[in-house]
């Protein structure tokens, strides 16, 4: 397995943050960085996914792999993510239904948007399998499926000219933002929690950042020079978030999505804040790795196996929510469920790597 690196480390941090934030009301939530800024771990996760695509679509020697291979690689990853989404959604539905039966509590089958799947199964089954109906907190992988579907186009455009890929990405983002274009949800009215047409920009930025870092001295120089600006943005974000200051969505001018803080459309304020976070924290991994080797190793292991860890984390966070509900919550419960959850994530990362190291049992068996 590869040595701990900044990308895997930060992806591990994002995975833990998402896991903790997906157990609403737990005491540890207040200590995640999502509480101290306008953007959160979702941005980090998608940006790093773009960065990883940059790494994955080049050979060890740094030469871009053949186009056909890149397309197949990304599409097969898309299928893998889609499969993971179906599996974790099915498990989540069974957990909610099982808990509702066991606790004789019909409220539980309505939790997290699950209601239509049980009350209107004919439409909702089509909905969740086609990703048009998403359970609450189970909405990042559908975004990722669409992003991986779009990725081959951007990667191949970038081989013509990186500016071309970036320009089209920014244009798509701006048009979706101004005209409020998003994928609809179905059968429930509304739209996707994460709008892929906007969030694709972060993926492309992540990819572009990787490309620039490989080939551009200027990028490295400016990245360092702009660090103080990043720190200022992070501080402003912390103040806005701490005092709950944000624009009134009914008072801003049109097109209003340009001005408000909106997660679905990755509004510009969130994007700017996230870029600030990147600039401010760019050197942190290098500083802490020599001092906390065990921790960085653990986090990087999570990051290396992000799909499996994310999937287990999604199911574990729902389990933690059900346990909190059942027991009534409290600090002792929170310590237990978050502690067990983190152990589960670590075990998952170890288990996936153990499986790839060990000879597989014969498929004929």
């Amino acid at each position: 397995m590869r040595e701990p690196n900044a990308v895997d480390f930060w992806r591990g941090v994002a995975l833990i943050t998402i896991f903790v934030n997906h157990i609403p009301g737990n005491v540890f939530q207040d200590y995640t960085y999502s509480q101290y800024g306008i953007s959160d771990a979702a941005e980090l996760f998608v940006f790093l996914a773009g960065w990883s695509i940059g790494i994955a679509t080049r050979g060890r020697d740094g030469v871009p792999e053949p186009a056909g291979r890149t397309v197949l690689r990304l599409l097969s990853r898309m299928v893998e993510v889609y499969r993971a989404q179906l599996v974790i959604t099915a498990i989540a539905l069974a957990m909610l239904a099982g808990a509702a039966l066991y606790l004789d509590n019909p409220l539980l089958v309505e939790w997290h948007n699950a209601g239509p799947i049980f009350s209107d199964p004919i439409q909702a089954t089509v909905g969740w399998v086609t990703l048009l109906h998403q359970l609450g907190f189970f909405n990042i992988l559908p975004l990722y499926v669409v992003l991986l579907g779009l990725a081959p186009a951007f990667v191949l455009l970038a081989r013509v000219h990186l500016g071309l890929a970036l320009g089209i990405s920014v244009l798509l983002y701006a048009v979706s933002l101004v005209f409020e274009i998003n994928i609809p949800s179905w059968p429930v009215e509304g739209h996707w929690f994460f709008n892929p047409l906007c969030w694709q920009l972060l993926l492309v930025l992540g990819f572009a950042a990787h490309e620039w870092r490989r080939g551009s001295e200027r990028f490295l120089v400016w990245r360092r020079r702009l660090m103080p600006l990043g720190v200022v943005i992070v501080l402003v974000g912390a103040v806005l978030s701490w005092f709950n200051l944000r624009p009134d969505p009914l008072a801003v001018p049109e097109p209003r999505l340009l001005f408000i803080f909106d997660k679905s459309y990755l509004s510009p304020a969130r994007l700017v804040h996230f870029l600030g976070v990147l600039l401010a924290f760019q050197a942190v991994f290098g500083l802490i790795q020599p001092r906390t080797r065990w921790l960085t190793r653990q986090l990087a292991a999570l990051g290396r196996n992000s799909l499996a860890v994310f999937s287990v984390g999604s199911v574990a966070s729902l389990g933690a929510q059900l346990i909190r509900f059942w027991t009534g919550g409290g600090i002792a419960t929170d310590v237990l469920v978050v502690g067990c959850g983190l152990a589960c994530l670590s075990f998952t990362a170890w288990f996936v790597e153990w499986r790839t190291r060990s000879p597989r049992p014969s498929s004929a068996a």
Partner: protein
Amino acid sequence: MAHSLSPSLLGGVSLAMAACLVLPARAQTPREPAHAEIPSLQATAPSPDAPDPSLSPECRVPGSKLYTLAKLKAVKKALREHRAVQVLAIGSTSGGLGTAATYPVRLEDALTRSLPDIEVTVESRGVSGEIASGAAERLRNSVAELEPDLVVWQVGGNDALARVDIEEFSQSLAETVGWIKSHGIDVVLVDPQYTASLAKDDYYRQFVQAIQKVAEREQVPLVQRYEAMRYLATRAISAPKGEAAQAGAGFRLADLGYRCMAEHVTRAITVSLLQPDGAPAPVPPAAH
């Protein structure tokens, strides 16, 4: 002018009288001045203590267990100006098989029947997540996206299941309701449902009460789904006997609760519209 009887008012009165004939309930005196202001409103103020005869039999609940009232200025203004009323239904959207039976469709249907001369459209949005952490923000964006006259907000289910801090939830709810009202948009709150397994859960009861307090303080009508379903639980659900039948009682009640919700919400809206403009809204005593 203030006491003239319009044809639709007569229709409303005769409807109510017909309902009284079917079910022996106390006859109600319609509040004529309020009707005269909104000629198209087909409703009469019911007695707070007897099962409301204008509801379909399986959903019949006394007014005191169904709602607390407050004025709905924006909707009233739209009715006076005879323009279409846009409603945004927020919260869970489950409730039945097929599109025609879903709660937003039923709500639009029931409101259109109660306000026959007015075009009513109901849009719905499910807001996943907790008010206390992020969902309130998304809700504001949904309201801004549609700019409705009325927001019917099924609130608290997710937060209660997540056992978030009640104080934090209340504060966030009050702020959001205040914000919606500050933009001249009416709000009707719908509290979470009742189920027998939660009847003795102190947290859950306090949670429902916290929503009542916010509704009272912010002067918005509240559909007491919890109370209404508790009332229905003592009646309709008691029919099947035996252990096997009892096992699914909570789920059957939940199903009935969904089916009745559109009617209950519509009733709370129409009766709230009967509130006179001047005096503060009378609040029926909370049934605890």
